[in-house]
């Protein structure tokens, strides 16, 4: 029973890391039609930056997380304005460009930080553990889940309850109409892309506390984030949350209980859901 609880808690905190990454990927894809293949690479940069700032320089955790988010958001601005914009409406080319870019970013990361993975770090403020009955569980994992939960509510509110969110949702449904109404769609896209990749950088720092930082992470987490948005559906915060929790739980519990089937169950779940509901569990119906 205790190990099951442990698995579940691990699954939830991992799920929130996935959520932060996948929700950006999902909204970018919903609004701009771009499957951002460089999302995992930006997560990796965030994790390395976080590790350097917190574990090496001893900087405050929150400052480090915001710093990494800011750096990746600025990078995202450059990518969106400098690269994607040149391929106006060529969605396939944009995806492939992002794919090529991911190789560049991951290899740059390896150049700067070296090929050796960094172990997970714990900011001094979050050290220690919480006692749940007979088991002690690291506080930092709860912090990860708390941050994720808080941001989930915030993002849901942003997308569903604010004017900006209404514009984004309208853009997902019909961008021509939105542009026809006088909304600057290009600026909206840039803002959403920066927010999405900023979240990727942010989640890199948060996630580094559980997963560490390594170049291999870029690809593996990109793949999982893609699974999450297939399951949850593209273009909604709720979908990303449900998908991330499912995958977080399946992946973590599968790894510890049925190592033979861990990856397989994850991808099988995705295929089954695609067969039953091609738009994902909570995707926006077109």
């Amino acid at each position, binding site marked *: 029973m205790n190990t099951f609880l442990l698995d579940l808690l691990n699954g939830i905190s991992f799920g929130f890391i996935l959520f932060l990454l996948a929700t950006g990927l999902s909204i970018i894809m919903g609004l701009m039609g771009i499957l951002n293949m460089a999302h995992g690479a930006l997560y990796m940069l965030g994790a390395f930056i976080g590790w350097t700032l917190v574990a090496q320089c001893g900087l405050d955790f929150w400052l480090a997380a915001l710093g990494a988010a800011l750096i990746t958001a600025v990078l995202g601005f450059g990518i969106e304005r400098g*690269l994607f914009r040149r391929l106006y409406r060529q969605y396939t080319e944009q995806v*492939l460009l992002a794919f090529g870019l991911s190789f560049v970013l991951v290899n740059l990361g390896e150049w700067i930080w070296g090929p050796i993975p960094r172990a997970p770090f714990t900011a001094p403020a979050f050290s220690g553990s919480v006692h749940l009955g007979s088991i002690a569980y690291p506080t930092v994992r709860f912090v990860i889940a708390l941050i994720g939960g808080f941001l989930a509510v915030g993002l849901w509110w942003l997308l569903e309850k604010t004017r900006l969110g209404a514009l984004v949702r309208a853009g997902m449904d019909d961008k021509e109409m939105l542009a026809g109404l006088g909304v600057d769609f290009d600026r909206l896209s840039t803002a959403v892309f920066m927010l999405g990749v900023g979240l990727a950088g942010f989640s890199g720092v948060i996630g580094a506390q559980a997963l560490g930082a390594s170049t291999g992470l870029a690809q593996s987490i990109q793949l999982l984030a893609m*699974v999450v948005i297939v399951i949850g559906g593209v273009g909604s915060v709720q979908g990303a949350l449900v998908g991330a929790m499912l995958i977080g739980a399946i992946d973590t519990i599968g790894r510890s209980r049925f190592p033979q089937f861990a990856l*397989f169950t994850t991808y099988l779940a995705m295929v089954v859901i695609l067969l039953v509901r091609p738009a994902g569990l909570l995707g926006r119906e077109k």
Partner: protein
Amino acid sequence: MPSAHHGREGNGRSHLLRLLPVLAGLVAGLGLPLFLPSWLQGLMTRILVNAIFAISLDLIFGYTGLVSLGHAGYLGIGGYTVGLLMARYGLRSLWITAPAGVFAAALGAAVFGLIALRTSGASFMLITFALTQLLYSVALKWDWLTTGGTEGITGIARPDLGIAGFRWNPLLFYYFVLLAFFLCYLVLRSVTRSPFGHALQGIRENESRMQCLGYNTWLYKYIAFVLAGAFAGFAGVLFAYSNGIVVPANMGIVMSGNALFMIILGGTGTLYGPVVGAATIGLLQFYVSDLAPARWPLVMGLVFVLTILYARSGIAPSLLKIWKKASGQHGSP
């Protein structure tokens, strides 16, 4: 090598100048390896295998407009089938292992195509990727299939041709792969030039218009998908013979991405383009790996990004245009 094949699309107008690139390609492909050390023959063999794989993907990517992020899965099926038959069951004959590999890959594509073709656009990329990851996890984790986990299957030999007293050497194997490449090229050339191939290009340009014209576009896409899977499986068969080992990473997303790189670099929607792309990437990788092996992904990524931004039509069509201008020919390729 890069300039070797760009004339092969020529449609037989007996103009000596027009045929020159084809002849140069033939001479380079047939004659050059005779004067090269065996490790360079090996490089040329690998380039040809990659070229077959890239052409097979171009049938659905360049010709039909379906971007698959999971094409390496069918290469993997072909390779693993050969590996299992050879290393686990001792079947070494070319005439058993190669058809088995191709058939298994086509079967895989026939099943996965049913699922993947329910979607299009970015969702198609996601699901093709997902289906291949499924295969990847099977190869990695299912011990009872004896796929060997991370280690993969080792000890795959070159195939038994059934000729008494025949012994392989790198040069002979190169010519074997070259012959296989020619066969694939010719078959795919007639496919792309047939009414079927033209219908695929019509679907790429405007699927709803093709539907209005009465085409069952789903069926066309499905057949193209299965055919591409079969040829990828054949590339996987040759890959296994040539490398002697198959590992799960051979069907990873990087492998699928490499094929997309080759197509885009060489020239999307052509048959000679992916060949030029495979040769260019093969040679580039060879030189970069010599200078700074750890920086190869960086170089490859940069080349890829720059090609998409500034040379979307690819190397081969540009070279062909220059060649035509220089030799005073007119008209589109």
